[in-house]
């Protein structure tokens, strides 16, 4: 139980900047997910918190204490690795008890706490097993027990379930979530699956190219993405590049009210916020996919962008049919920042003129 503070944390490997200017505060008992595409610097941030990588800029504070230059063995953190990293020459009990033995606990104390940890992760009686007699899921539970038994202030997890199948991954994810709530342990969880992040996190930190794009509650990330990257990364989003001139966003046949300064802009519309009418318009229906609960229409706009729109049911329309699309709710971005959100200006209903 502790707070973690990262202050303009940065890491360069030679000339490549893996992480740049990361500022983040993780509250006591909070579960934060680092989410981002491959190579976005998630692991590097986590490894700097754990002490496995020295930052080239910034500081790491735990409970206000600067640990930037402490080695891993002297930090109150514990890390769970993607490949469980169990020591194959020790038994399960040997693995879990290793850290306790190093701390000079008596044999009886070690045994007792190892048993308690095995109970916590749902593997009672597995102590004498060899690590190669464990399934993938069991091995990860043992690794979790090995971390938990030391009662770390902060638990770090780097895609711990990535090598497991979908079903097991979901179950372990639930268990970790329950444990985290029960033990009230501060946790940083790295993943590149947005489902996992949405299911687990109190707060999600979206990273791209070594920078934090947005750190926010899951629902806020979806409803109010701060950058086009987040907009495209969380859920589905249609992104249409265009131009603002005279208070209007113009792209091909689409014209929307946009009371902002002139210049280039990026229009972002969720598929469920895109109204479609068939029969007239400059768009062309490409394909309709019926998912039962709803249908998705893919539409080619005249300037070449293909957008997706959710429909309550599959329309009776053939590919190639003329289509008009009208954003019901949209956001404009410029220079990676929000320029204009249609919802926030009541009365300024979007005007769509489809020539």
């Amino acid at each position, binding site marked *: 139980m502790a707070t973690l503070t990262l202050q303009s944390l940065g890491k360069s490997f030679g000339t490549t900047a893996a992480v740049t200017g990361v500022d983040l505060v993780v509250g006591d008992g909070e579960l934060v997910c680092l989410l981002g595409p491959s190579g976005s610097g998630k692991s590097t941030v986590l490894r700097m918190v*754990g*002490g*496995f990588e020295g930052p080239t800029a910034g500081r790491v504070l735990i409970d206000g204490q600067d640990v930037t230059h402490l*080695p*891993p*063995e002297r930090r109150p*953190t*514990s*890390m769970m*690795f*993607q*490949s469980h*990293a*169990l*020591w194959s*020459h020790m038994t399960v009990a040997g693995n879990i008890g*290793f*850290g306790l033995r*190093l*701390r000079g606990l008596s044999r009886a104390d070690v045994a007792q706490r190892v048993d308690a940890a095995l109970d916590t992760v749902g593997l009672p009686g597995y102590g004498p097993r*060899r690590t190669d007699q464990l399934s993938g899921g069991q091995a990860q539970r043992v*690794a979790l027990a*090995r*971390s938990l038994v*030391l009662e770390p202030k902060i638990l770090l997890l780097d895609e711990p379930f990535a090598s497991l199948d979908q079903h097991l991954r979901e179950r372990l994810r639930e268990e970790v979530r329950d444990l985290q709530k029960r033990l009230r342990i501060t946790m940083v969880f790295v993943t590149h699956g947005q489902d996992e992040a949405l299911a687990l996190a109190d707060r999600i930190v979206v990273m791209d190219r070594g920078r934090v794009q947005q750190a926010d509650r899951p629902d806020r990330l979806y409803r109010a993405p701060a950058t086009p990257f987040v907009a495209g990364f969380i859920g589905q989003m249609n992104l249409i590049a265009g131009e603002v001139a005279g208070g209007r966003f113009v792209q091909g046949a689409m014209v929307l009210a946009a009371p902002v300064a002139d210049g280039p802009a990026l229009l972002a519309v969720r598929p469920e916020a895109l109204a479609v009418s068939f029969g007239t318009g400059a768009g062309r229906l490409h394909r309709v996919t019926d998912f039962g609960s709803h249908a998705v229409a893919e539409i080619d706009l005249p300037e070449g962008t293909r957008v997706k729109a959710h429909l309550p049911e599959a329309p009776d329309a053939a590919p190639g049919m003329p289509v008009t699309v009208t954003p019901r709710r949209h956001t404009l971005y410029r220079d990676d920042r929000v320029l204009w959100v249609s919802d926030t200006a009541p009365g300024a209903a979007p005007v769509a003129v489809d020539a």
Partner: protein
Amino acid sequence: MTDTATSGGAATGRPDASGRVTGLILVALPVAMVMTMIVWPIGLAILDTLWLPGPDGTGARFSVASYRFFFSDGYSLGNLWITIWTTAVSTAILMAIAIPLSIYLRFRTGRAAAVVQALAIFPLFVPSIILAYAFVRVLGPNGMVDIILANIGLPRIRSPYLTVWGPVIGFVWDNLPLTVVILLAGLSGVSTQAVEAARDVGAGRIATFRHIILPRIGPSILVAASFVVLGLFSAFTFPYLLGPAAPEMMGPFMQRTFGDVLDPVQARTQAVVTFLFCAAFGWFYVRSIAANRRRMAR
């Protein structure tokens, strides 16, 4: 057509039998080699040392006189002792250098590590006689170190050349590359994450080495040590070129007894004693490897 089907069926029907035949063929060749090239000549040599002519020079009979001489002769025993001493000291120094060096090379990346690795492996490609010559030029009397020291006004070193330390330094230098290569192979089985996990639960460098790395590279250390020990026992070049004239290591001793003293029976006796030491070590080695296999397979 039918033929292949039948033989295929037979093979799948008795996989043991066909596997056994293949196994026997695979084993037969090395066994034949060992028998003709090693066991047979060794047997002959042992026989020669135990089947001696009588005191009057006629009528060969069983006798342990040559061994009695070896083990009562102070000079022979001194030579055996210096061989054991040199082997033990060289192996210990070698491991003390090679283990930290290979751990460094395994867990560091970048230019510095690459340069160190190249330097450490380099002597592998240099014949030992050249190394011995380089040794004399650098550490010998009026060698490079001597001249540098003299030029900056410091007293000369006591050169290890022609002392018991000469061969030790030569051996360590010569065997370092192979030892490092073997240890690196063993260390490749220790994952970076396993080491990081140990650091994470609170193990410092020493504890990580003792509890995580050492148990995994124990067999490699044993293999490397065996190469060194067996090689040193029969070494010739370094003790001959760099070592003292007396006591001498078993290699030069045998050569001199055979070629200069012209006493082939005593030379063979020395060879058999050397062989028995190596065989004892080999037995220990095979047993440890087997024990380790059992532990791994358990």
